């Protein structure tokens, strides 16, 4: 049975205007949460699709429990689509903790390039000036974390080796200092140290492109980014 706080709960101190409010003050954190119940549209996202082969690269939300942004690629190598939030709304800062968690499944774990996380706006986000992302590149099913502050480009060790069409949960915790803890399926895998996080605003972004000919799909289940204000 859950514990019931019938008068509510609070995370503010005496004198705060929300002191008598019986729910937690959400303004203490900047939060982005997308469960992909609705299709990412161009009014909110910059969508960069490449469709050189037959078919059209696109993102749709199919009938599936939980909400999924499904990337379907056209049939040539390097066909696919990247979506980035239309504005850069997250800046990592020293002294402020940041959490990021996401869940995805890719159609071809080896023959694909994909990423998810935060990056400066760029239509080729793997090369964005600043990056704070999980990614995998063509020719390998290995997933690693990449932090690029435009001076030092840091990769973690391999976090997990993906299997085709199998969901994985990835998470990163920035401690507000120089460390990033990295998790796979809620288990700590490694900690990057001596890190300087990017010093400018970045956009939420994700995407998948083919590493070989043939139409593929990738499912992005959710992304959650939370930063202390």
């Amino acid at each position, binding site marked *: 049975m859950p514990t019931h706080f019938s008068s509510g709960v609070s995370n503010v101190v005496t004198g705060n205007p929300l002191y008598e409010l019986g729910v937690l003050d959400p303004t203490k954190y900047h939060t982005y949460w997308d469960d992909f119940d609705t299709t990412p549209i161009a009014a909110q996202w910059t969508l960069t699709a490449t469709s050189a082969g037959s078919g059209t690269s696109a993102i749709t939300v199919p009938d599936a429990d939980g909400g999924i942004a499904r990337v379907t690629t056209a049939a040539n190598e390097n066909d696919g689509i990247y979506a980035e939030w239309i504005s850069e709304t997250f800046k990592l800062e020293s002294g402020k903790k940041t959490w990021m968690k996401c869940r995805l499944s890719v159609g071809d774990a080896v023959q694909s390039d994909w990423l998810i996380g935060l990056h400066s706006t760029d239509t080729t986000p793997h090369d964005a000036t600043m990056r704070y992302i999980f990614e995998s*590149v063509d*020719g*390998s099913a*290995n997933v*690693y974390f990449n932090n690029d502050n435009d*001076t*030092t*480009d*840091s*990769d*973690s*060790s*391999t976090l997990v080796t993906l299997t085709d069409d199998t969901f994985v949960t990835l998470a990163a915790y920035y401690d507000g200092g120089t460390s990033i803890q990295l998790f796979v399926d809620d288990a700590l895998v*490694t900690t*990057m*140290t*001596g890190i300087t996080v990017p010093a400018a605003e970045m956009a939420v972004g994700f995407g998948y492109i083919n590493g070989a000919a043939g139409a593929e799909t990738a499912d992005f289940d959710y992304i959650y980014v939370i930063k202390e204000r």
Partner: protein
Amino acid sequence: MQTNLTKVGDKWAVEVIGGPDDETLVKTFSGREEAATWIRAAGKGEVEVPVLKPKKASRAKPQSKAKSVKP
């Protein structure tokens, strides 16, 4: 293994970092693409990943012998 890619002068340096008890190792490359290719290949196990040496343990200073005092 964590890698940090940085431009140093006209070269690109890849700092390879292991655990907290390992010494870091730096490999330099003439171009960024070459360095990035090495990082990707190391991640895939296609090139030999450097074995990092353990950091030398700091030695405690030997205690100075007490001077013998003549009776």
